[in-house]
């Protein structure tokens, strides 16, 4: 006699940010939820190899390297390299375990059933879960959410051996700081690790085929990033991708570039993007297809082409931010259960945890010019702010982008310490449809970096007045 597999209202595949929030949303709605995760601990790449580790490394690197103090204080806080690595890794482990515990408790508290294993679709409603001990069990889901995340892209031509040539996962388990590091790539992960290791005293070379790092950013901010990176001792090689990479057998990874140049570094970090983790899931058995970029296609509510199957997080492609993934997971389940949704969130801030931080929300200057036929841009340099001088953070820049009339805020970009926090003021102003004058007419705490908003808004107001005078 065939035994029917246990039936769940919702089956969630993957316990990263999207999966957790989806599972909790389902449980809070009174549904029977199963959460399947291949790793021993919940949290996904975000906790174990992504957002949390890199941000923890960043904060620890900033503190240990005395980066802030070097510019602001005569107090010497530099530690030796060995202490740095040991402290970095200990701190990283502590933060990860704290998050794991928090998430595991949340899953338990909400009565979510949790299985460790690798899932594969048997039918559109049934999955089989293979446990590490080889045992298999099946489950039926009325609704299934795929949130299996992503892993580093491994280019066939680069020998990633996790010894000399690392990826963004294995770089987190280094046991000593290399003297030099070549970072291949120029995206967020590449830029973050490049500046973190540079702050720790590693000689960093960053190279990519693109003309500038963080190509999706406002060019002025990206150029400022490169200037600061190079002034701190780093090297950015634009427009180049190595034609060959090999370990010389003794002490260097040799990258030969198209123009014949050789770059020798002790280690290499390959950070050329991430690919969706769908291997072994057999999405075809569920009636799904991956798109040409290897992601699952979904609508605005994260619903796939199979009505009861949803997908969220890195498996559906950009923006691949932990915050957006959480919202996608939550929204998917609310939609599946017919709960009120609210308007889709459009104003998602981007936070890049480089040293210094970079943040952006809304439209860039180029985007506003393209859409509106022009833009008025206000700038505030941190050196003009009392708090910038006090903090020794004098090279930051805050840009506000307004419509051609200089009245409506349409976007903001910031580079400088605290940028990822500061950007939320602009986010709220955008959501609230506030005018540029809101920043001029109101009073900010003094001395703060937030004053930069007022300075930039005054810059726009000044340009607006001159423009009106001309007209």
């Amino acid at each position, binding site marked *: 006699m065939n035994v029917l597999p246990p039936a769940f209202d919702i089956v969630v595949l993957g316990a990263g940010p999207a999966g957790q929030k989806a599972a909790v949303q389902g449980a809070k709605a009174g549904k029977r939820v199963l959460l399947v995760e291949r790793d021993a601990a919940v949290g996904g790449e975000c906790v174990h190899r992504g957002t949390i580790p890199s941000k923890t490394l960043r904060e620890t690197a900033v503190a240990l390297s005395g980066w802030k103090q070097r510019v602001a204080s005569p107090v010497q806080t530099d530690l030796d390299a060995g202490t740095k690595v040991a402290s970095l890794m200990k701190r990283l482990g502590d933060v990860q375990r704290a998050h794991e515990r928090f998430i595991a408790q949340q899953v338990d508290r909400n009565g979510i059933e949790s299985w460790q294993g690798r899932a594969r679709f048997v039918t559109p409603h049934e999955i089989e879960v293979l446990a590490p001990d080889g045992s298999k069990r099946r489950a039926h889901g009325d609704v299934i959410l795929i949130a299996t995340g992503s892993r580093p892209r491994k280019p066939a031509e680069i020998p990633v051996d996790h*010894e000399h040539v690392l990826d963004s996962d294995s770089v987190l388990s280094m046991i000593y700081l290399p003297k030099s590091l070549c970072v291949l790539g120029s995206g967020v992960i590449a830029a973050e690790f490049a500046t973190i290791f540079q702050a720790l005293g590693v000689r960093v070379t960053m190279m990519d085929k693109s003309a500038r790092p963080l190509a999706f950013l406002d060019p002025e901010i990206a150029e400022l990033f490169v200037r600061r990176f190079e002034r701190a001792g780093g090297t950015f090689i634009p427009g180049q991708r190595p034609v060959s990479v090999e370990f010389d057998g003794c002490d260097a990874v040799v990258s030969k570039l198209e123009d014949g140049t050789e770059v020798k570094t002790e280690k290499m970090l390959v950070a050329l993007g991430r690919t969706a983790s769908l291997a072994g899931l057999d999405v075809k058995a569920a009636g799904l297809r991956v798109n040409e970029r290897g992601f699952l296609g979904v609508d605005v509510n994260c619903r796939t082409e199979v009505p009861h199957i949803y997908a969220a997080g890195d498996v559906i492609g950009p923006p691949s931010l932990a915050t957006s993934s959480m919202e996608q997971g939550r929204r998917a389940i609310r939609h599946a259960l017919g709960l009120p949704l609210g308007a889709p969130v459009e104003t998602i801030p981007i936070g890049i945890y480089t040293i210094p931080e970079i943040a952006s929300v809304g439209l860039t200057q180029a985007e506003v010019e393209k859409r509106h036929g022009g833009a008025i841009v206000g700038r505030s340099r941190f050196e003009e702010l009392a708090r910038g001088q006090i903090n020794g953070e004098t090279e930051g820049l805050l840009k506000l982008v307004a419509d051609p009339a200089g009245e409506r805020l349409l976007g903001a970009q910031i580079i400088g310490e605290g940028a990822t926090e500061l950007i939320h003021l602009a986010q709220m102003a955008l959501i609230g449809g506030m005018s540029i004058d809101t920043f001029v007419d109101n009073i900010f705490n003094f001395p703060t970096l937030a004053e930069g908003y007022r300075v930039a808004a005054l810059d726009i107001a000044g340009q607006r007045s001159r423009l009106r005078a001309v007209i």
Partner: protein
Amino acid sequence: MKTDLSLHDELVRRIDSGALELPILSDTAAKVMTLCSEASCDARRLAELIQRDQALAGHVLRVANSAAYAPSEPIVSLQQAVSRMGLSVMRDISLAIAVKGKVFSVPGFEAELRELWLHSASAGAWAKEIARLRRRNVEGAFLAGLMHDIGKPVVLQAALDVYREAQRPADAKALRTWLDEHHTRVGSALLEHWSMPDWMQAATLWHHDPESAPEESLETAAMVCLADHLSHWSLGDGKSSEDAIRSLGVLAPLSLYADDLDELFGRRDQVSAVSKVLS
């Protein structure tokens, strides 16, 4: 006449008091001396040679980390030692160890030590493959695997000293029991004495019982436990098997599945070749 029980008490007393010296195998020491006298000696060949000898590798790392050479950061791998210190300093260290080190020579135990070293080298190579499969840094994994049984020669030497001083012939069965009983603790203490990283000490201490390891050391201890089993399996010494490995409790914390194990089992020849070179 002292009984085995009182000899064991004496051994435990000596272990507890610390300061047990790790012996060096004279054969490798001699090869290091020969190599260093050649004009063609290069850092890579020297590192490879040192790597073949667990005791010497340990000594090199200890000396490289000593105040005499004042490294700016802990030297935790031979490759790092070569890279940081250069050939001439490495040559000095190797020669100093070769000349000053205590030569381990115990008639009747050469075969056991050879077997132990082969197993350790093999465990190091397996740990590397496990780490690679799990997308973790392999240098630390190799060292953790290589050093996991480092306590055994130390306990053996200490036990033989106890027997010799009591003017008693060593009892092979008692020796095996004592080695099994004390090698994790002694190995861990030795690594601590050498200022090796916490994770290496923990892996050595908990590799037979990773489930009891503190949370922060569970993953490394589990990895070394699996490497230990894979090494026994690949060497065919009867101490582990494919079935035993497939049912290990450490697979879950390592998030390794049947197809991952298939991939590891498929690397047997490659790992055997590496460990043969090392040994």
